């Protein structure tokens, strides 16, 4: 009795579920098939099509948020982004393989001439839409706050300061009880924009303490290193007395050091990161529609956090297909909007661009499509 009742209930539930799923299938298909067709007839009123991008992996998680936000507003647009790396992204874009690129560096001179060709007599636009603070992360139990001046950071990462209770560190942290523990600096093992920005910062601020050049590849050989931001964070977590640098949003529960700017100790924050971009001048020698920032790493502006990574979105003023231009324009417009920047801040921990910067960026984006 009991068994048969169970069986019957089960059978009914199964039938119901089947019916539901079948119904779902039935109603789904016509919608999916009908939407693009219906849209093609009324093109212009709504955007549709394929938007392909590739480039810096730093933008990847922000791009996820932007893609989701943009596609929910424009359901017929399909945005894809391949995080192949900045160099690869620029190359693919210049060769016409993608519609836009993400890059941690602005276009170089020879790339600008290539861009003119790719952009069908237009120009390349470069806009900084992703600003991310880089944190100096450390794993030192018992030390919750750490002040590090640029010279000390350089000394640690150049392995001239080798223990945590070294006088150089102790001088800046009178209140902390620093253990007698060897310092294990952790760097990125792959070529990366984070490393490039970090070394740029050290070159600009640390003076003689940092004898190496800025480069995307870590200049000091030997020692601990790991692939990718998550690898560095995991390695810093895995040992005691470790210190590394990583995208601030991925720092997790690790301690983050305050760095010395002027006479102040500044902790990373989205506002502080945006502040340094505003305080920095624009780079020369770029195209008219490029908003390229010459980061002033040695800034002494109050409340600015100069250890940031800027990643640009690169597109064309003119595309062979005007519809493509509209798509790119709409997408970048959304990314630059406060809504888009908020979305990236929530999901990727980036710093939203300031309103002054947005005005310039919007003027550049306005130029898309005007050239055709």
């Amino acid at each position: 009795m009991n068994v048969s009742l169970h069986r019957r209930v089960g059978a009914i539930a199964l039938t119901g579920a089947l019916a539901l799923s079948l119904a779902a299938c039935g109603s789904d298909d016509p919608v999916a098939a009908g939407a693009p067709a219906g849209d093609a007839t009324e093109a212009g009123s709504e955007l549709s099509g394929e938007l392909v991008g590739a480039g810096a992996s730093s933008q990847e998680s922000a791009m996820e948020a932007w893609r989701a936000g943009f596609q929910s507003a424009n359901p017929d647009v399909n945005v894809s982004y391949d995080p192949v790396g900045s160099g690869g992204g620029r190359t693919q874009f210049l060769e016409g393989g993608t519609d836009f690129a993400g890059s941690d560096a602005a276009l170089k001179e020879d790339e600008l001439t290539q861009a003119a060709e790719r952009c069908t007599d237009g120009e390349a636009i470069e806009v900084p839409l992703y600003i991310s603070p880089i944190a100096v992360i450390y794993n030192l139990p018992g030390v919750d706050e750490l002040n590090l001046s640029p010279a000390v950071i350089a000394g640690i990462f150049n392995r001239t300061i080798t223990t945590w209770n070294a006088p150089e560190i102790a001088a800046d942290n009178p209140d902390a009880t620093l253990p007698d523990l060897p310092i294990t600096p952790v760097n990125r093992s792959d070529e990366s924009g984070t490393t490039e920005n970090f070394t740029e910062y050290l070159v600009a601020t640390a003076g003689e303490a940092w004898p190496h050049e800025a480069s995307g590849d870590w200049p000091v050989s030997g020692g601990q290193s790991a692939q990718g931001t998550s690898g560095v964070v995991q390695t810093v977590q895995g040992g005691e007395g470790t210190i590394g640098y990583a995208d601030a949003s991925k720092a997790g529960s690790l301690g983050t050091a305050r760095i010395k700017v002027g006479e102040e100790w500044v902790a990373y924050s989205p506002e502080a990161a945006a502040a340094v971009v505003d305080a920095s001048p624009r780079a020369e020698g770029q195209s008219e529609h490029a908003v390229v920032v010459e980061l002033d790493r040695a800034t002494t502006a109050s409340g600015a956090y100069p250890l940031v990574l800027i990643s640009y979105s690169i597109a064309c003023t003119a595309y062979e297909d005007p519809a493509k231009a509209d798509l790119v324009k709409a997408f970048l417009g959304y990314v630059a909007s406060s809504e888009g920047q908020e979305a990236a801040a929530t999901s990727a921990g980036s710093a939203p661009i300031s309103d002054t910067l947005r005005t310039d960026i919007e003027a550049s984006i306005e130029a898309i499509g005007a050239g055709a």
Partner: protein
Amino acid sequence: MTTTTSPTAPVGSPGGAPQPPRSARRRWPEGRATRAFRWLATGAGALILVVLAAVALFLIVRAWPALTADGATLGEDISWFPDDSSLLRFVGPLVFGTLLAAVLALLIATPISIGIALFISHYAPRRLANGLGYVIDLLAAIPSVVYGLWGAIWLAPRLSPVWQWLSETLGFIPLFAGPAADPPRVILTVGVVLAAMILPIITAVCREVFLQAPRLHEEAALALGATRWEMIRMAVLPFGRSGIVSAAMLGLGRALGETMAVLMILSPGALYSFNLLQAGQHQTIAANIALQFPEADPTGVSVLIATGLALFVITLAVNMAARAIVARRKEFSGAN
């Protein structure tokens, strides 16, 4: 057909009447099938050669720009290429690191594998042996990225105190010179994880070989009063020696090419160093390719492919050496 022609005939006659045509009909498709199968088999055999040649050709063609360029220009073009160096000097430490990691893995895995295989073939009760065999085979099915995660996140923190102890007590041996790196992202950790990865294949081959050991030899040994261990030493191991070597070489092949686990566990460096417990000393070819490829420009890709060519040559050499060993030992193995 049979029902209409001979409804009343006994069972033998309807079968007998159509037999000649049917067998003729069968011989034709059979001949064609045989021929088709032969061609298919030959084609499959040839395909493997074609694939091998194609891979070699691809590697050489794509590596050519790097092979012909001189070190100075490569150093200028590629950020991770050491300045005033040459391709040979760049590949050298990578080859060294690759071989070191693989040899460490082999040193750890081979004795354990032989032990497991002997346990399964000669010691364990049959039901347990079957179950254990399945488990070992299952280990081989785990993707290497999972081994990498396991090694980096779970195993490494647990190995740290062991390596610390090793460097403190055996630090006078240059191999274990301290201080041991913390976190232990070192070549010895990689060796342990690689050993776990190649364990299944070595065990599986060894097990099969040990099971083939001539029963009569074993029984003769036992009849002469040998203990089980003596029997294994006298009858099973000599017979299985060439099998053990080829099993180890199969494992070595896998260890040489392993990428993800090394990439996730090792802090890379480019030195000819025997410091097994220090970070930033070694790197393997495969892991280096995976690490540098995403941001590499065309010249960089060419250099990476040149290192891939080196790995290809090493793997080929290892396999040929294994074949040579197996062939030379065959006569003495007792298999005949």
